[in-house]
Every structure is written in C-alpha cells, then in structure tokens.
C-alpha cells in the first residue's frame, strides 16, 4: 500500500513544484510574516513582552486566514480537475484504492504547506528574535504556531478534496472552496459575535459560545495558540474565551478535524463514477 501512496505523492510533489506552488506558497508566507512582525514592533514596550511574542500573536491571526486559503487553493482541483481531463478514469483502473490516491495527494500537499510554514514563520521568527529578543517561551510559541498552522492546513486540504469530489467541474469546486473559506474564517465568527452581542453576557455567552467557537477548526487553532501562552493571549486580546474552556478542547478539536475531514473526503470520492 505504501509504495502506491508514495508513487502518487512523488508525482504530485513534482506537479506542485513545476506549477510553482511550492515557491509561491513559501514566498507568500514569508512576505506576510515579515511584514506583520515589523508592523507589530511598536506596542512591544507597552505589554512588557519580547518582540517574538508579539510577532507570533500577529502571525497567528495571519495564519487563520492564509493557511486555509493556501490549502483550499491547492486541493480544490485535486479530483474535479483530474476527472474533467479524463485522467481519473484511467488512474482508477489501476490496482490502487481511492483512499491511497487521496492520501498520496495529501502527503504531497501537506509537505508543501509545511515547507511554506517553516520557511515563512521561521524567517519572520528569526528576524524578530534577532532584532527584539526572544525567550524559551516565545520560541515554544513559534514552534506551536508552525505545528498548528500545518494542522489547520491539513483540515482545509481534506475539506478541499471533499468538495472537489462532490462536484464535477473545477470551476464549481473553486466557487465552493471560496464559499467554504468565507464561512469558516469570516462568517462563522461574525455570526457568533452577533449572537454574543444580542445575548448581552447571558447563559449563551458564558456557557455555549466558547464551545461553539472551538468547534470551528480556525477558531480552535486560534484558541490553542492563545490558550497555551498567556503572553500571546495578552497580545491577542483573547484571554476571556480561552479561560472559559478546558485546556484540552482546542487541541482535540484541531487534531480531530483533519481526520474527520479526510474520512468525509474519502466517502464522497468513493461515490464518484468517472
């Protein structure tokens, strides 16, 4: 099984490299991370934390938007595109299971995302540490940011495969991907915020809202990074919610999401008749 998964992954990695995906993802992450680090340099003194901490806090916000976006852009075409070109029918006549095909593509794509995260956040973190100082805690926060960003990317890769298998044309898949991103990253939070304002610090706000928040992988990502480091939370202004939840909730949510999304993608892919 592993040789087939690796064969698919190797081909897919070549394609990602030739399509300049690897390069583009890394450049985008690096540019944004560096820009944010130095734009965030001002309030350092006021909060009494080192520059790397502030940098990690702002890069957390960046990653909430960018990691899902990069992942969806890489994955929306994975099945719909192959199906439209007619290559999928041929591929599926080979003794390789649909799960193996999907997992091979996933390995290549998550590798690309991981590389972009390590290079981008690594470069920005190094720059921040050199110019504004860093401690053990802020270094741990940086590593946590990189790790959780990769997990967040994994969630949206798998969700991208699911919608790519659900529709027959790449154009429709691209539209759905944009919608999915908007819902998870923007609309879900806006909706919750509206409910919180309406509730006026009632039962919903104190008891239900934090759990609804952590159900969304993008928010779980934010909460994990914020909850694990008081300083990052301070710099991010999210201490309230993080305090209302048990410490395990965000990590569990962010670790289960990729698995659940992958299983969903495989189920939908199984029904495709190319």
């Amino acid at each position, binding site marked *: 099984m592993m*040789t*087939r998964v690796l*064969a*698919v992954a*190797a*081909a897919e990695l*070549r*394609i990602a490299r*030739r*399509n300049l995906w690897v390069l583009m993802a890394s450049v985008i992450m690096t540019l944004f991370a560096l820009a944010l680090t130095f734009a965030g340099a001002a309030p350092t003194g006021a909060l009494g934390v080192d520059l790397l901490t502030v940098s990690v806090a702002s890069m957390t916000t960046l990653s909430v938007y960018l990691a899902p976006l990069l992942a969806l852009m890489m994955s929306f075409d994975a099945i719909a595109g192959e199906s439209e*070109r*007619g*290559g999928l*029918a*041929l*591929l*599926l*006549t*080979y*003794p*390789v299971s649909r799960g193996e095909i999907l997992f091979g593509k996933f390995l290549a794509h998550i590798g690309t995302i991981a590389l972009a995260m390590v290079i981008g956040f690594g470069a920005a973190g190094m720059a921040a540490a050199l110019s504004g100082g860093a401690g053990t805690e802020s270094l741990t926060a940086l590593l946590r940011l990189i790790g959780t960003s990769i997990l967040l990317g994994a969630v949206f890769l798998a969700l991208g495969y699911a919608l790519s298998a659900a529709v027959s044309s790449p154009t429709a898949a691209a539209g759905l991907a944009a919608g999915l991103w908007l819902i998870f990253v923007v609309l879900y939070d806006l909706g919750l915020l509206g409910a919180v304002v309406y509730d006026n610090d009632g039962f919903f706000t104190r008891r239900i809202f934090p759990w609804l928040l952590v159900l969304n992988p993008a928010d779980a990502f934010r909460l994990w990074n914020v909850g694990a480091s008081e300083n990052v939370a301070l710099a991010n202004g999210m201490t309230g919610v993080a305090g209302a939840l048990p410490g395990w909730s965000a990590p569990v949510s962010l670790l289960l999401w990729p698995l659940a999304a992958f299983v969903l993608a495989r189920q939908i892919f199984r029904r495709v*008749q*190319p």
Partner: protein
Amino acid sequence: MTERTETRAASPDARDVLAVRGLCKSHGRVRTLDAVDLDLKPGERVALLGHNGAGKTTLMKLILGLWTPSGGEIRVAGAVPGSAEARKASAYLPEAVAFHRALTGREQLTLFARLAGAPVKTVGELLERVGVADAADRRIGTWSKGMRQRLGLAQVLLGRPRIALLDEPTSGLDPISRHDLYAIIDEMAQNGTAVLIASHALTEVEARTDRIAIMRKGRIVADDTLARLSARAELPIRLRLTAQNDDASEVHARIGGERINGASVELLCSPETKMQRLAHIAALGDLVIDVEMAPPSLEDLYRHYSQGDRT
C-alpha cells in the same frame, strides 16, 4: 432484460477472460445498454463497432468497474469488475487520453508502473517500443496528440494484462501510427492478451480482428467472424458491366439491372446465382467489354447490421 438473460447459456466458458451476461445500464430513464452478452478468450482480437452513442464506451467503463451496472453480470478473469484482481488483469486506453501536462512522459509512465506493480525498468523499453523515447523527458504538455496516444498505449502494455480495452485507439492517428498500433495489438494477442477494440474505423478492423461485435442503441446486434457475418447477411454481390461503344441500352434491354450512366449497367445477385448470371453476361458476347465484381464490403455489412434492416 430478464427475459433475454434467462434464455442465454448461464455458465460462461471457464477459459473466457471476459464474460458479460445480460448487462444493462440506465442513465436516469434512458437505457444505454440493454441485455449485452459478450465473451473474450485469451489472445482473441475483437472489434466492437457502432455509431457514436451506441454504447461502446459505456460497456468498457462497466467492464472496468468504473461504473456500476443496472443489471446483469460481468467477470474479468473470473473476478468482479473493480476488484484488485480484475484491475490487475485489465488495461485500458481511454477514448481521449489526458495526462498531467506538468509531468514528463517517463514520470507519468513510472507512476503507472509503480501502481501496476510492474518493474520500473520496463518503462524505458516501453517508451521505446511505442516510439516516444526521444520525447520521454519533455513535459507532456508539449506533446502532440499522436504522441499522447502512444503514451496511452505504452501504459496498456505495462505488466502484461490479460485483457486490454482500447476505446477508439486509432482516432487522431496518422496512417503510419495506425500501422504501428495494429502491430502492437497483434503482438499483445500473440502473447495471450485478449483485446477489445472499440471503433468506427471499419477499414483497418476488417483484416486485423478475429471477431466483430456490432452495437446498435445499446444492444449487440451481431457477434461473429467476418466471413459468417457476411454469409448470414446474404448481401448481394454487385456486378458492373461496361458496354461496347458507350451504349448500354441494348445490354440493359437484354439483361435488366440498373443503368448507371450511358455506358454501364449494374446488377445485384446472390452468391448462389452468381455463376448463372456470369454465364448470361458471357452470352452477350462483344456487347460487354468489361465486368467488375464487388463482394459486399464491410461498410455494407456494418450498415446492414447497425441499421437493423435484418429479416
């Protein structure tokens, strides 16, 4: 479908590498395959002829397990379509092959070889065998249609399949490529691979296949050797007489038939009455300066079966 299937022989020959029984497929309310029976033995080359939309591609996708049938049964090398065993035994050349533009030919074929469990070192030989070795390390995006078709053929040869399904393999190929294609098909058949070739390119199929199955509107309307199909169709032989002095009126008056132009008369006759007819013509002596005889062409045969004007 049921009525038909029940009357057929229930147990297929155990030697058959492909056995299709009473196969039906509906797309919504449209029936695209209706009670199809088809068998292939090892090493047999069978042409699957039919107009566009007759159901050739549908039949192949069902045999490959890509689509699920609405009824009937298929066995590929004794296994259920789509099972690991059936996939190992079969190879497919899709109607319009598309590969990843960003990969080179060698990389694409290496991927297929790994998936098929075939030794990767055969990749170079196969690229050579189908005549694309020179372009092997260029991206497929820069290849011509004919070259891609050849790469498609190379992946069919991987791992010596027991049955190869080729969907319109000659479309878009120049005559030399076609010749190469049929040479490869012959070689596969000699090695024991059963080959099913969907086509509407009648002319090459004629000499190159052992059996012809003709599809019309989702049904197999004929399935036999060319010689037996001709005999059964009882298509007339065509005789064309050229008259002396460019004047066919007297010949027409004495022997009947149909006047084609001022100088020629055309007669149709059955194989049994052919000699008798020729004797009549000989009796006309100098009036006739030439006789051309045309046996029914594959074209006639195909038209006969595919348009359903059977008695």
